[in-house]
């Protein structure tokens, strides 16, 4: 059993124990390591001032980096020895303010202090300076890291391929109150990566990668001040721990739990981190559907679903920030059970099944069962899980070609905002042609026209699925509305259904919207959907 988290910070090996291991990474950097370039503003992952780059090397991620596959199907077993010669590390931006040091175990972290080469500024730093992209300077290190993260992905050929839209997408997770962003976007557009400054190139040290792989084969146990954090290396160990420690809490990416801790909620006494379970990093597409392990991030989901569930991929562009999506998991979004969890309405209509495992009394074989997504939520933030059960993965259907799927979200600010309400709408029409432009979907600004068969005939709905978030204590399906939709589909009927949706929900008024606004926009989401179905 290991009593320290292993991190490489700007290439320097750190073993971090006890109290320090339970600090948030940003606090640790600033107060324990005297690296104050990383700033903390909101402590909730909404401003990006604490952005650092992280690469996590385990068998699964190294394989992915190695194959460079956008759609990664399955994971072949690669043992640590063979993996050491692979692959530059895959550095991605993340928020260091809401991630504990312990869950960063095995990670390679690069902070703003690690960007300079001696006295020379890195390309992102040069561009930010030249474009007058800093004013007060407080958000600046975070932007430098976000741009550097973009360069790791798109900077290879002298920055080719980065347009203003892409640059902005990489900067969505960073707030600035001084500049109005324009000079920062210009910096992101003018920056040119060079081999010399590539973060992966500078920090993919084979010995360090091998060291991290070897060390993380041992389970981690951090104990301090009555808190116990355990990171097993096998599912069996994990389930035993879960059985023996009632009230345990799974620590995923902590993008919600970390916020709560920063806001004064004490760290749970017993914490289980699954970051060393290679098998949970699996993401694959089978004939039966798409399967995502509990450690698969939303960024991976988005990349994977670009062809299989393009509407979901498109929708995920509006989900949180790049920094959050790079660490937060789909299963985490499910397990958090928020009534406004952005992926949940989609999963409710996509035939999603949650796979759970347990080892009652901590002995014997692993027991597995499946829970239909529609049965998962039994109350506000309450899951239909038995004590000791852990969600290992989730599977759902790929979007079928004769289905018209749309995901909508209404929020105070378009991007990087929690929805007031969200909705997933899917109709399958009789005799509908295969969508001609499905694969180009995300590249187009306006939705591609949807053909509804013969223009002269009234379109007929053979299957309808509708789910809403933010209108009740849990995300909900709307069976009555779905039943009403079967049969001929006309604008008059659409208006009736829109009113039915508005009338049948009982939302609350809160900081994000009034109940009336939620009712009206729930109906309007359907009005928009119907227009897209009928007129394209």
């Amino acid at each position, binding site marked *: 059993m290991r009593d320290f988290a292993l991190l490489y910070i700007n290439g320097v090996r750190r073993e971090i124990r006890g109290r320090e291991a339970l600090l948030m990474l940003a606090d640790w950097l600033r107060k324990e390591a005297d690296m104050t370039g990383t700033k903390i503003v909101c402590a909730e992952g909404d401003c990006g001032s604490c952005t650092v780059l992280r690469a996590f090397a385990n068998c699964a991620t190294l394989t992915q980096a190695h194959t460079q596959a956008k759609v990664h199907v399955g994971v072949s077993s690669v043992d640590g020895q063979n993996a050491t010669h692979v692959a530059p590390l895959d550095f991605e931006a993340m928020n260091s303010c809401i991630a504990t040091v312990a869950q960063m175990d095995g990670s390679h972290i690069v902070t703003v202090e690690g960007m300079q080469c001696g006295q020379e500024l890195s390309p992102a730093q040069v561009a930010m300076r030249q474009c007058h992209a800093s004013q007060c300077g407080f958000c600046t290190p975070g932007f430098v890291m976000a741009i550097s993260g973009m360069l790791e992905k798109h900077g290879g050929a002298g920055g080719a391929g980065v347009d203003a839209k892409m640059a902005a997408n990489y900067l969505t997770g960073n707030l600035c109150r001084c500049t109005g962003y324009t000079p920062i*976007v210009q910096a992101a557009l003018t920056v040119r990566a060079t081999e010399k400054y590539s973060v992966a190139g500078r920090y993919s040290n084979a010995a360090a990668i091998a060291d991290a792989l070897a060390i993380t084969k041992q389970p981690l146990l951090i104990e301090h001040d009555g808190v116990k954090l355990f990171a097993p290396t096998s599912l069996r160990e994990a389930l035993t721990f879960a059985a023996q420690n009632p009230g345990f809490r799974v620590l995923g990416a902590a993008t919600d739990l970390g916020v709560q801790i920063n806001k004064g909620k004490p760290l749970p006494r017993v914490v289980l981190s699954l970051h060393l379970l290679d098998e949970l990093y699996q993401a694959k597409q089978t004939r039966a559907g798409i399967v995502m392990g509990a450690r698969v991030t939303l960024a991976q989901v988005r990349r994977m679903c670009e062809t299989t569930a393009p509407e979901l991929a498109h929708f995920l562009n509006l989900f949180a920030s790049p920094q959050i999506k790079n660490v937060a998991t789909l299963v985490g979004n499910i397990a958090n059970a928020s009534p406004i969890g952005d992926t949940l309405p989609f999963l409710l209509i996509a035939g999603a099944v949650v796979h759970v495992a347990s080892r009652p009394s901590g002995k014997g074989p692993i027991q597995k069962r499946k829970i239909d997504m529609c049965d998962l939520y039994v109350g506000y933030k309450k899951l239909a899980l038995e004590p000791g059960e852990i969600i290992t993965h989730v599977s759902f259907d790929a979007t079928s070609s004769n289905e018209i799927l749309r995901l909508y979200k209404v929020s105070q600010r378009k991007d990087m905002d929690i929805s007031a309400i969200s909705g997933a709408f899917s109709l399958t029409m009789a005799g509908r042609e295969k969508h001609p432009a499905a694969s180009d979907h995300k590249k187009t600004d306006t939705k591609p026209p949807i053909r509804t068969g013969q223009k002269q005939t009234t379109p007929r709905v053979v299957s309808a699925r509708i789910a809403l978030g933010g209108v009740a204590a849990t995300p909900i399906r709307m069976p009555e509305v779905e039943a009403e939709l079967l049969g001929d589909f006309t604008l008059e009927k659409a208006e009736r259904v829109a009113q039915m949706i508005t009338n049948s929900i009982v939302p609350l008024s809160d900081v994000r919207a009034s109940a009336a606004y939620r009712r009206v926009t729930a109906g309007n989401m359907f009005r928009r959907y119907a227009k897209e179905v009928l007129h394209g």
Partner: protein
Amino acid sequence: MADAPIGQVSSYSGALTPTTLLPDLGSLPHDSATTHVTGTSEFIDDRPMLKGELHCGLIYSPFARARLQHLDTAPALAIPGVVCAITAADVAHNMWGDVFADQPVIAAQQVNFVGEVVAVIGAQTKEALARGLASVVVRWEKLPDIRSIDAAVANASFIGHELQIAKGDALTALKSSPHTIAGVLKIEGADHFYLESQAAVVYPREDGQLEVHSSTQHPTQTQHVVAKACGIPFSDVVCVAKRLGGGFGGKETQASPFAAYAALVAKRTGCAARIVLTKDEDMIMTGKRNPFQIHYECGFNDAGKIIALDAMLYSDGGAYADLSTAIMARAMLHCDNAYFIEHARLRGQVCRTNFHPHTAFRGFGGPKGVALIEMILEDIARVVGRDALDVRKLNCYAPDRDTTPYGQRVENNCLPDLFEALETKSNYRARRQEIQAWNLDRARNPHAHARGLSMTAVKFGISFSTRFMNQANALVNVHMDGTLQVSTGAVEMGQGVNSRIAALVAEQFGLPCAAVRIMPTSTEKNANTSPTAASSGTDMNGSAAVMACQKIKHRLAALACALRAIAPEHWPTKTAGAATQPEIAISDRAGTFTMFPDATLHDARVDGTGATTNVNSPHATRVIFKNSNVIVSEPAQPDFQIEFSQLVSEAHFNRTSLSEYGHYATPHLAFDKVKGQGRPFLYFTQGVAASEVEIDRHTGEIKVLRVDMLMDVGRPVNHALDMGQVVGGFVQGMGWVTTEHLYYNDNGLLVSHSPSTYKIPCVQDTPRIFNADFIVNNANAVNVRATKATGEPPLLLAISVWTAARDAIALARPVHAGVPTTSTPFSGATNHTHSSSVNLGSQSTAKKNLVRLSIPATAERVLRELSPELFARWDAPSTP
């Protein structure tokens, strides 16, 4: 996600031309640019913790108004690591406030807003602090509170008296006006959302002195509040403000009590003490932009020319006065904005409520007055059936119509030119037609989204409206290697005041900017300073620095003239050690030469190489500071040239002082606040912006498609920094008028107290096309180097986004107001320029149809205006 590329700001290539009198001082990067990008710029909480340094935390009220029945800090002190607890009884002088000293540093018996502090805890670790804070026992008795302007007015709960500005006879003129419109405009507040929350570190120094490092815009006030709270003389407190992670007005007054909390702990314990608010604490506790409620009536003629305006402005001041009365004055002083109003009666009253004391925020009341008049002009246009731009141009200040309601004349009036220029640059007329066509074109606009276009102006008065605050001082030290350290009262908070002052000083001595270091702002070097606010930082502190430079230059110039006649081997550096030569007397040379650059730079001209040449010199002898050299030039004589650093050394060995202090008092100011008449402002910064927005029919979300801005910023000291202020200020203003929504619960607690619920603009919210440019204007002779302040004015141009949203809503209504009777809804090609085709019937319809949209125009509010029928059934009384 952006569905179109994020626009870039256009270059400012056309801004300055070779006809410019003086060379551009360059667009050098911010003086901290390198340390910003490397993360080495030091902010308050980046300072290393000293051994024994204490963390401070606060116990504050959870109720808008309550009696403090019982407060027991003993349980906290029993926790290991908790070192001290401070309550009201420990505060030597427990009252502070800039205008009225009406706010306790620590509340004693009663609290008047959520977030009002009743105790400060000091602890050795953050963990101990958290436990200590949790164990303090407090019992509150909730009292009735006032949480709206209406309630305050009903209860006559006011701060200060009613202010009034009057011109002509507004009430009579209203009665005789052909048309009037009247209504109530509600404008909510906004959080500053500076990224660095309120923070201070206090180090106890020997013999009872305190060294305060505070994220404050007003080091002098912070020094004074700390000293009074601790019961020590001002001379025992030094307040330093190296840099701020944003201020925007939020640290003009409200940084001081937090510094005082840390100081009280430091003084009690003898340990260094640090307070760093979390974003949540900061947003809950500190005041915002004042909410306003404006009751107005405006009279105008058939053409849309304003005849009279009567407005009663109420603002929500929160629980204590803070700066609210001055903010109200500025709001009233900006109700005219760019437009001539013959008869005006403007009244203003600050209300006392049970919210955090509202405070300065970029624009300082100005945006409220401007929003009012810009909205009125849009509505007038609807009623008379003309395009709003035509109505604006009709009402714009002009040579024969240039007196403001408060009696100041609008000098250097660029507004008509700005309107004309932007109308062309933005292609306003063609886009107006295209927008109306697009709105009705179901092929291109299948969801019936609504686009709108609006051009608004700003004429922002520069100077504190309170005369005595318009003073600044600067200390200039020239070192013997020819480099300089300059200290002023200006606080660097991102705006680039350091870089601008450095450029002004460097130009004075003919040195590169790199030779000038601007030192941290500190009250031991610059005392009795005004806050860095009112956009005046560079104007006032730069002027003071230039005055100090002039004094030093004068001595150096005289010395250079003398050295010309002395053999180099007899110069002071060669002879001072043994004192073989007499010292050079320089005072008798006063008035025998002319210096370049001179203090005002008004007469200076430059040749093609950027060198200064003689213009109107009263003396034959010219002393020119350029290219790190000093040149003495006389007719028919060879020039005498000496390196600046050499001359400086000679001066030192000649016992000539190389340091100076400058004090600047803004001239020409004479505003009688009691009468509401006079000249409150030195000059006006002006600009116009045209914004085009698209409103989502289904959600009410506003997307800003295009913004064109054109500003008069005089002769910029640093283009890039000015452009940064203009673009950044606009986007900040966009947040205020659109997505930034302060949501309070029934206890008066701000619930939207973090970025997860309080939505400032993110990168995707910036206009898709964003063109910003400056005009050439060298005529602002009253200010240093003929520059104009840029800090606040651009924020007010974001009001065009709000008026564009109103325009979009109006155009989207079934039969929108003012449509000439001959046009059909589907013609889509009406430009509304012919008022003659509007009949009286459509005017009364138009009045009924006027858009009622508060600020901010949140998606919900927009959708309510767009589709009121969908809300009718569901409207609960308590909609936000």
